[in-house]
């Protein structure tokens, strides 16, 4: 992630009204901010993030029309207020305090503001100082200003400033800002009302992190680290969040932008990249898509194509992938059909015949490209499928509309021992049902039923058929410990001298819940539990034993 604004990158522009916009900064273009004016993209390129700019009325000699608002000015009011509060405190102690202002004499109507709408409109056209003049005039012509309490005055000024002042702040677009933007200003349902705190907790519970440099040491005996299954129905937000944690979301800083570089060097750089694209370098040298062995995300999708459209904000379009982007090699996608029943998958089941060099040279150029396209696609999906079905994954992260039980049924056997499972759901019902599938009563019943089937086997001397077991129990309740359900919510506060309190309003909607468990491998032999027995367990013979007795030792 960069600390300064780069060309052709998406950034967040925060306006005085607390609205945010996502803008792609193309060099030499103008960015429109609606009623707050407009500015040239070049005037903020290369500058640090989190700067607040004010749009000046007249450009400087070199055409620069912005002013960086220093932090003291942004905090000016609070600083003054704080200083005053100190003074007041001392006065109060000496006993000579002025009578407290209240709102008892304030008339609640619009007549207090003397300026008419028309006058304000005219002011807007004329006034200079990036809207500060308007705010000042508005305050001047308010008749009851002196009657207002400090609090209401502050609120009034703030409201007017939000409306008129021509300032904006540039923030880097990362998963945190994108999450908030989608939640507040887009259709929150489409990202399953995922909040920042969910994103953080989901990644931690899933133990998602960078897998180290396993690709570099290339020791075949050690299993590759950091392979995660992701089931994402939020349009790519969960994938982006996990990729951010794994350090594969942002293009690498191969050449950390050096300010000493001349503009000509930059221009050269631009042409270079376009050249690279046009003059096709030898095929072998290009990184094959989905080819990384460690630190990878394998997305399992329900339709034939994954919906990862939100990744475009991070410079990765799944349809026209940028080969230098780390996601090109580290993001793998496969459908449920490819994972569960690859023999019926239309792509995997139709292997294009491997042609010899002779046969290939006999083909027309376009046929050859078509052949390569098909053959490469088949090879790519074959490799992804084989690798996924071989298992050994380090975690499963899901935010899905699918029934959680089905997702777990097919993915848990592919997780390595001790790997974490973390599932997000906006509503609790799918997860309580899942919790019930792992209930102690069900686990005990499962263990007993399994033992019975094995007993039959030893008497018959045949291989044991566990089909009735999987019929009765959709999930093996002994393979996940300890199933836990979490919910979390962040509450924001306002911190001002003498006026600290939680914000008055907030977002409602889905509460958001997380399911967490760790994949464990039960021993092949039946093991009696030990420990503090409430009651001695009898040897059960019925298929449905009185279940709740062994709550303590089986977990």
């Amino acid at each position, binding site marked *: 992630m960069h*600390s300064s604004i780069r060309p052709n990158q998406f950034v967040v522009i925060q306006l005085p009204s607390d609205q945010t916009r996502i803008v792609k900064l193309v060099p*030499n*273009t*103008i960015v429109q901010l609606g009623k707050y004016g407009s500015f*040239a993209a070049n005037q903020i390129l*290369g*500058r*640090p*993030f*989190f*700067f607040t700019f004010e749009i000046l009325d007249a*450009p*400087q000699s*070199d055409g620069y029309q912005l002013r960086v608002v220093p932090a003291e000015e*942004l*905090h000016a009011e*609070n*600083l003054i207020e*704080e200083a005053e509060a100190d003074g007041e405190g001392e006065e109060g102690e000496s006993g000579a305090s002025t009578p407290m202002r209240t709102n008892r004499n304030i008339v609640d109507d619009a007549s207090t503001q003397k300026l008419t709408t028309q006058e304000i409109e005219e002011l807007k056209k004329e006034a200079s100082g990036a809207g500060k003049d308007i705010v000042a005039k508005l305050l001047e012509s308010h008749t009851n200003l002196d009657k207002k309490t400090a609090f209401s005055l502050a609120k009034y000024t703030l409201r007017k400033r939000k409306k008129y002042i021509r300032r904006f702040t540039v923030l880097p677009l990362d998963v*945190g800002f994108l999450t908030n933007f989608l939640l507040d200003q887009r259709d929150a349902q489409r990202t399953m009302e995922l909040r*920042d*705190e969910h994103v*953080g907790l989901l*990644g*931690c519970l899933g133990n998602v*992190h960078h897998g*180290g*440099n396993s690709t570099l040491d290339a020791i075949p005996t*050690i299993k590759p*680290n950091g392979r995660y299954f992701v089931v994402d129905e939020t349009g790519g937000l969960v994938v982006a969040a996990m990729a951010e944690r794994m350090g594969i979301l942002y293009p690498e800083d191969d050449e950390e932008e050096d*300010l000493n570089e*001349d*503009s000509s060097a930059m221009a050269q750089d631009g042409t270079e990249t376009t050249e690279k694209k046009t003059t096709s370098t030898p095929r072998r040298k290009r990184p094959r898509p989905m080819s990384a062995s460690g630190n990878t995300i394998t997305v399992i999708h329900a339709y034939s194509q994954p919906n990862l459209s939100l990744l475009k904000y991070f410079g990765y379009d799944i349809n026209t992938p940028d080969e230098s982007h780390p996601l090109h090699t580290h993001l793998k996608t496969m459908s449920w059909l490819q994972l569960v029943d690859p023999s019926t998958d239309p792509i995997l089941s139709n292997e294009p015949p491997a042609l010899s060099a002779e046969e290939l040279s006999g083909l027309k150029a376009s046929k050859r490209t078509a052949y390569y396209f098909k053959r490469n696609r088949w090879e790519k999906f074959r490799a992804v499928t084989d690798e996924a079905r071989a298992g050994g994954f380090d975690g499963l992260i899901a935010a899905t509309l699918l029934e959680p039980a089905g997702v777990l049924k097919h993915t848990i056997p592919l997780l390595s*021992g*001790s790997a974490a499972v973390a599932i997000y759901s906006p509503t609790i019902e799918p997860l309580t049902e899942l919790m*019930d599938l792992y*209930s102690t009563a069900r686990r005990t*019943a499962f263990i007993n039923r399994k033992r019975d089937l094995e007993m039959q086997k030893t008497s018959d001397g045949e291989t044991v058929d566990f089909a009735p077991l999987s019929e009765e129990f959709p999930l093996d309740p002994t393979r996940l410990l*300890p199933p836990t*359900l*979490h919910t*979390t*919510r*962040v*509450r*924001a*506060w306002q*911190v001002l001298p003498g006026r*600290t309190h939680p914000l008055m309003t907030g977002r409602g909607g889905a509460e958001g819940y997380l399911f967490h468990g760790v994949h*464990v*491998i039960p*021993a092949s032999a039946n*093991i*009696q*539990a*030990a420990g503090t027995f409430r009651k001695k367990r009898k040897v059960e013979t019925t*298929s449905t034993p009185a279940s*709740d*007795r062994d709550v*303590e030792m089986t977990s």
Partner: protein
Amino acid sequence: MPSPFLTPGSVAQADDVALLHLRRDQTIPTILRATDDENLGYKEGKVSNTRFGSFPHSTLINQPWGSQIVASKVDTGSRGRKPSNKRKAEELEASGTTTGAEDSSSLKKPEAASSGFLHLTYPTPESWTLSLPHRTQVVYTPDYSYILHRLRARAGGTVIEAGAGSGSFTHAAVRAVFNGYPSEKSATKKRRLGKVCSFEFHEQRAARVKEEISEHGLDGLVEVTHRDVYEDGFLLGDPKTGRSPKASAIFLDLPAPWLALKHLVRKPASGTESPLDPSSTAYLCTFSPCLEQVERTVRLMRQLGWLDISMVEVNHHRIDVKRERIGLDCEGVRGATVFPKSVDEAMSKLLTDDERAKRLRTAHLEGTRANLTEEDTTSTPKDQTVPTYNLGRLVHRTESEIKTHTSYLVFAILPRDWSEEDEQKCRRKWPSDKLEAEEKMAPKTRKQQKKEFKELRLREQQEEKEEKEQQATETSEA
């Protein structure tokens, strides 16, 4: 040595830290040792004793992570051990006479016990947080997950932490910034490796954290410094002339964070180097339980030019899910409530009760004993088709004990260093008044590409046809 926290591999190896999962919220951390390093006198080498049995480490080492492990028969009584460890005192209760230590040169092969097991899992910051030895108040998962997310602590970053406390946040932070072990540095080019710089002013705690970091294979990824940061700031090594950690994220879990803020500036007044990374945005979080601390901190942050200051608290709780059975037919079922489950059931109960009372009354009047047992047995038919685990209604409620307040989190941001010189360079590079009129051609979409590809093929086919026709005409001409 790779850390099992970050790259656990597939099997537990000797000297790894492992967590022995007994049951929910009962996990014992231990260092796996092939030999009896503390010389406790077990014949099987190092043994972990739990309430669910004894587990010689030879039964744990080289087992796949996540395995269920059977307890072993361990003679815990007949060792010549002086009771030194309080935690292990309970095993002394086991029967047996003390006969003194025997020759431990050859380890005894453990024998499986008839009952008892645990699950062997690799440590994660989450499980470590729940099982670590408490020295101070711990920052729990819901808080640190949100903090690290907001601090943008990502692979390759550097985090400053003060104070280290019990090391819960330390482990979570090192996972967040990890992107390779320091020894691999020479192999890669100049890629920056993630690092946590931890400060602790309590000498014993600092030493203990240092020890744990080394036991957990995190040496080089975490640098623990014993330091009073209020006085001496955040430079590594010597407080005045030491190296700057060049941090981009700072977490202050201190009683008076405002006293440490003066060191976290771009140009310290004392003339020393800034601990912040000059070329990146600095993200700061303070963790204070009291509102007064927050107000003081925020005030100083405003004076020091921190931006985007916000304060939040994290409310988290776990939820218990269970099946609740209510009905007159669940007499004797554990956890069930004997009460009519519906108005219908209540009414029929009222009727039967009334009838019963009537019969009792008539019987009393007539002076005979009423026979009621027969009816009782017929009125409770048991439904045997549905297994018990599927009976009742699925309900959920918040766990019985919750943390209603952990601490207030104050977040703030300090933009990177920016001088007038930088600004002028930037203006030269990106001329303010240069504008491009023409629109760039939009990149081809997949659909467009497909369409073009089809057209190309169509054209080719046509060409082929024409060629053939031409050939045909040529041959016919010939």
